[in-house]
């Protein structure tokens, strides 16, 4: 690999780490194909959103400081999640006293933090991917990626470059799926209603697969799709773009 290859610290995200390692490996493959050197800092757990969104600033700041230390040496921090990337990019700087050393480091890390697909297209200039996925696919916009990072066209553009993939429009693609972190367990009835609507909209398209950029949304949607006994599978967009679709879709068994 060229010596001028940037070093990308992969922020795995807690959900990918725990539930869907394939997404992490897909991210590594995509980043390397885009000419990056990938490292996985060991002292990472979670971005701290559960604390931040529950009003627990103390723990959110402590976890943020841990991430600042872990990713200090990388040229970029890249996460296969718009919500974690937005947390690090936009929210970390607000967790520390303005003007403090930590606040400055958080701002600086925020500036080199990207969501995976946006990093590939916007920073590395990736125009397309060299892989097949001969299925009908819909894309669900994860809220944070869409509204905090402006990720909308990038994943669609790359998906359209996949051979055989037919990208169809999803009504209300930009409507929240009802995951919302702790929201889905604090307000399960409302969350269920929202994800039921989302699953119904997906089913109406006749798609084989729903793709998205955030595992939180995907687990919520996949959980509802399997409960509905729907034929539509759910996959992280990175799996499709990296051609790592040998594993069954999220929430589907080996059988």
């Amino acid at each position: 690999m060229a010596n001028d290859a940037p070093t990308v610290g992969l922020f795995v995200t807690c959900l990918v780490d725990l539930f869907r390692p394939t997404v992490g490996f897909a991210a590594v493959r995509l980043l390397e194909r885009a000419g990056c050197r990938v490292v996985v800092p060991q002292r990472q757990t979670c971005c701290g959103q559960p604390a931040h969104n529950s009003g627990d600033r103390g723990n959110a700041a402590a976890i943020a400081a841990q991430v600042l230390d872990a990713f200090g040496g990388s040229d970029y921090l890249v996460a296969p999640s718009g919500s974690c990337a937005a947390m690090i990019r936009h929210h970390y700087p607000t967790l520390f006293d303005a003007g403090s050393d930590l606040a400055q480091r958080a701002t600086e890390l925020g500036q080199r933090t990207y969501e995976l697909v946006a990093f590939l297209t916007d920073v590395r200039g990736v125009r397309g991917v060299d892989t097949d996925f001969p299925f009908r696919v819909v894309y669900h916009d994860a809220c944070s990626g869409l509204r905090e990072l402006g990720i909308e066209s990038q994943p669609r553009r790359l998906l359209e470059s996949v051979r055989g993939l037919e990208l169809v429009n999803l009504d209300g693609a930009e409507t929240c799926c009802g995951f919302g972190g702790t929201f889905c367990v604090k307000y399960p009835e409302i969350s269920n209603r929202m994800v039921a609507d989302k699953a119904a909209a997906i089913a109406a398209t006749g798609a084989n697969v729903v793709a998205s950029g955030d595992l939180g949304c995907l687990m919520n949607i996949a959980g509802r799709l399997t409960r509905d006994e729907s034929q539509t599978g759910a996959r992280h967009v990175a799996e499709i773009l990296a051609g790592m679709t040998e594993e069954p879709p999220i929430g589907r068994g080996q059988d």
Partner: protein
Amino acid sequence: MHNSSRTFQENAAAALADETLQIALSRFQSGFSARRAQAVARMPEFDDLRDRARRIKDHTLEHLDHYLERFEEEVIASGGQVHWAQSPDQARQKILEVCRAVGAKSVTKGKSMIAEEISLNPFLEENGIEPVETDLGEYIIQLRNEPPSHIIAPAIHVLKEQVAETFRRAHPTLDSARPLNEARALVDEARSVLRGKFLAADVGITGANFLVAETGSAVIVTNEGNCDLTQTLPRVHIVLASLEKVVPTLHDAFTLLRILARSATGQEFSTYTTLATGPKRLDDADGPQAFHVVLLDNGRSAMLGGPFREILHCIRCGACMNHCPVYGAVGGHAYGGVYPGPLGAVLTPALSGIAETSALPNASTLCGRCEEVCPMRIPLPKLLRRHRQQEFVERLGSMRSRLALGLWAFFARRPWLYRVIADMSIRLLTLAAGRKGSLRWLPFATSWTKGRDLPAPQGGTFMTRWGRSNRGATKQRR
């Protein structure tokens, strides 16, 4: 002020189970959001206008005392009076005083959320004065004895068929053979009854979208023209508004009006934009003999220097609730306060304290759609999170969620320990799922598994798998 925000959880469950309500809710949001999107698309300078609007409010709030005093001077100069009310009770008493001075028996009302905030209707009734709502939606819910469920579409939760039933019950002169299937027929029926009420009213009370400091005018928009009749026909006109409604100039008011209608209903301008400046002048054809403005504070001036100041930018267009997926699922009544939706989830706790209302700012996925459509660019998710911070600091949340969060954070702050626990938990979950790929039920996670399956982990965390691969072992590989 009705307030059942504390029982939001139960209210929401009831709303989700209410089939009629769900039919009403399923229809309205897509229409509102599509019309707004079209109106915005037709106006390339919409975002610039939003910035200008925001600057107007920023400037006004910075100099609120000055503009309020200027407004009062101008009202007096045009022959009217301004009454300052710090509390809902003071506002009610002042209104009663004005009504009693003219021996009022009946009062017509234009739509006013401030009247809801001070619970004006029951108070007037207790004092022998009949309040008559003249906005069609408000009139319907007044007959049904319900509070509004939306700030600009108060009866959005009611189906046409229910309106027909309500009219048949409440209008003794209505011929039972007359069909009321069409919206037009319902409007005609309401109009035929309201006409008499307009003519009989002694006092007309309207809200205000804006108060103009340089002219002492109150500006109100409607699509029914009901406020024109409410404020011109009776002998006395009372404007009831909260103090953050003031803007410096007429020009400012019209800048805000241009984004108000587009954000609210997708109209370029509301059908009627009505200005009221003082009582009838000598050469006026008609108008009230007396003009009063009751200015309500009710905690707003205290918010000026606090963390929720930005919610005072709100121009009450309703776009946040028209686009909120939580509002769309449960409707406005579930919020249990005067103001529903994201606006209410920020404003209600800011006005009445977080202790009784903490369910509201928590009942959001922080999806950010409200901020995206807010014409005043109010960072609603940020303000919701601020309420959560206050709730956390004051230890108001449930002990269970606090413990769970504390336990999770304990591990998340200790990466090596976290790895051990994560590996163990994932192994257990994978085992529990077997080859099925997802779990239909899981102890301690039933709020998840009640409505959806829990996808099982693939097996082995990423960090462990990565560590075992050559890649993880030779970190510096080139």
